[in-house]
């Protein structure tokens, strides 16, 4: 009870301080707010530069993608590393590697409850539907990854969808089916490959004597007309890396959480 009172006081103070500052904010959607146009009398803000020059610099119509993967691509590399880290940490904490043959006591066989006639119908209907849905989900996911240049989307979103498609296999059938298609060894490897693609594409410019993440240096390698197109292709490359990592880690988290790290039984 005491702890609750203290917590409430702390929350109240934090909220009051936050509200205190709100009165000072620029209006919502104000085009002349500092974040949009820069401080009055100062130099124009970065966002104004992005709005005016992103297409010229990168030939990517979607500003968000260009900022995410090029201007601030260094941040996004580490956001991807965060996801990779989350997967590794969950593995380190949850995965049970010893006593694999010992019977896992607390989890009752989930398939037993479904072995009624109703359950079988249920499984057939859900199973067939998902079998049709999964390839469509995956194709749409690839579209989202590839179309990040033009519309909302990109590696994170597409990767989540790809991961979800494997989770759907696990939910509609069993985790064993999903693991048969996407085993533990392969999802760890694929997550690492994703980071490797991102870091590798970002690192290549160093070989050409340019700075980290400066995809423009890949002009010769990719055979594009100008540095802008090279940047565009570089952005696609790193999005692909993000998609690999996100897909693998999403599925890894699901598999470990749903089976308490045993990768057996579960849902």
């Amino acid at each position: 009870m005491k702890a609750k009172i203290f917590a409430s006081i702390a929350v109240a103070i934090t909220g009051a301080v936050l509200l205190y500052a709100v009165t000072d904010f620029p209006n919502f959607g104000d085009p002349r707010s500092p974040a949009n146009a820069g401080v009055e009398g100062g130099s124009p803000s970065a966002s104004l530069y992005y709005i005016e020059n992103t297409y010229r610099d990168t030939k990517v119509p979607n500003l968000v993608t260009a900022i995410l993967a090029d201007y601030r691509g260094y941040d996004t590399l580490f956001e991807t590393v965060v996801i990779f880290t989350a997967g590794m940490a969950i593995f380190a904490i949850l995965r049970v590697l010893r006593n694999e043959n010992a019977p896992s006591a607390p989890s009752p066989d989930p398939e037993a409850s479904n072995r009624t006639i109703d359950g079988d119908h249920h499984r057939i209907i859900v199973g067939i539907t998902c079998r049709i849905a999964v390839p469509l989900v995956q194709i749409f996911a690839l579209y989202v990854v590839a179309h990040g240049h033009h519309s909302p989307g990109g590696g994170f979103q597409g990767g989540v969808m790809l991961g979800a498609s494997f989770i759907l296999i696990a939910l509609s059938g069993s985790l064993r089916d999903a693991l048969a298609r996407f085993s533990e060894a392969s999802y760890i490897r694929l997550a690492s490959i994703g980071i490797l693609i991102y870091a590798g594409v970002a690192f290549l410019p160093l070989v050409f004597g340019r700075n980290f993440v400066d995809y423009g240096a890949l002009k010769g390698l990719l055979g594009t007309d100008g540095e802008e197109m090279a940047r565009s292709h570089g952005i696609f490359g790193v999005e692909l890396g993000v998609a690999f990592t996100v897909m693998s880690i999403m599925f890894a988290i699901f598999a470990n959480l749903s089976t308490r790290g045993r990768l057996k039984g579960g849902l």
Partner: protein
Amino acid sequence: MSDHLPVLVLLAPLFGAITLGLFGMKDHRVCLPVVLSALVVSLCCAIGIVLKVHSGGTLDYFVAGWKEPFGIGILLRADAINSPILVVIATVALLAAVFTVRHAGERDSEKTPHFYILFLLLCVGLFGITITGDAFNVFVLIEVTALTSYGLIAIGSSKRCKVAAFHYLVMGTVGASFYLIGVGYLYLKLGSLNMQDIHTILASNETLADSRAIRTAFVFILVGIWTKMAFFPLHGWLPNAYSYSPSGSAAILAPLVTKVSVYVMVRMMVSVFGLDRLEANVEWGHFVVWLAVIAIVAGSTMALAQREIKKMLCCLIIAEVGYMVGGAWLGDPQRWGLTGTVYHILADALMTSCLFLAAGAFAKWHGAIKLEDLSGIFCKMPLASAGFVVGGLAIIGVPPTCGFYSKFYLIRGAIEAGQWVYVAALLASSLVNAVLFFRIFEIAYFGKNPVESHGHGDDHGHGHDSEPVVRREPPLQALVPVLVAAALVILLGLFNGPVVEFIRTGLIETAAVVSTGR
């Protein structure tokens, strides 16, 4: 390639982690060579950065090459304040890596590659936080550091370390969110994330700098970082997290994570909000120094009450964080307090590393968890204990260890600023440290030999009860890091002159560069 040092220093461990993810899972023998070589490369890069900064001043690296207009890309900036910290991070990480040979995850040796992946990514995060010049990038790398820390703590076998990691996770997330809110408010009012850009705008626009949103942003950033560094009222997560985690994890987490958070605070004060502004608002400084005094007293008092070695060391970390926060906020005109703080970041990282490595070795090869378990350790492990003594003397502040000089500079700053309470707290805390460590030395030297009295902890080899203890040092993998750390503690003390000179040029130069604008 030498132009790219600021980014190579963290790419080496990143590529190391990727290599482990690809090849380490099948064959665990790959792990150690990869980890060690990645960290050696980082150490070389960090030393290279120090040399370049020493000869050529501040080193700027524009990621993705976006130089013009300033602030559209991400800037990495190495100067005299952060470059020595990079070297210390690489050194401590290397020592901890050597220490973990053959007992990485302690129980589950199958998880060795995962342990090392998290270990290397933690180094990536720490290097990244230290070298970046972008306020948002700091947040991203704080996330990397935090997630890896949770994993490294929870990888231990006991249930306690999982609970401790969860507690840390909650507190750490609150801290990181506060920092993010602060940065968000800054962006809302200033439209920039680049630290120097923010500073230039604040310095040129008085009314904006005094506005409510900016003040709130500053408070949130400070409180967020204070949570991350376990500043006294926000310290709850630290003792359990670091004392229940595996020795190998504690050997890198305890010395580095809190110290790097202190560095972030210093960086925010020097290069974002500006020392002139902070010195103009003296009452803020007084307030924080009082908080620091409370932290020092509380940390020392809690340390006195502990029965376990690592818990006691953790409480000392809390007191040391108090030293550093107080020192940074003294506001003396010559900035000796700030100099002492930056120097103490280096010193404290090394001495904490020394103590935690030694404590880890005692726990692993002597079964010593409580203070009493240490009796007779000097006869059994004279060299490792010597390392522990050096670390302890440094915490007390005995010359010629680095602990003495950092306290010297902090006290000098406090006297010039007239902060006598802080001086008193520092001296009292040194006395408490002396009591603590001489109590340990007494147990360790003159205590009874480890006989049947505590047979529960040590299941290996105390068969000869009444005979004098056989000398049995921990294996080289543990002994060498302890001794190297002890030697560095003394070396940093002996060469405090040039180090402090280097830091001071950096502090003055950075402040000057920043206030004249781009």
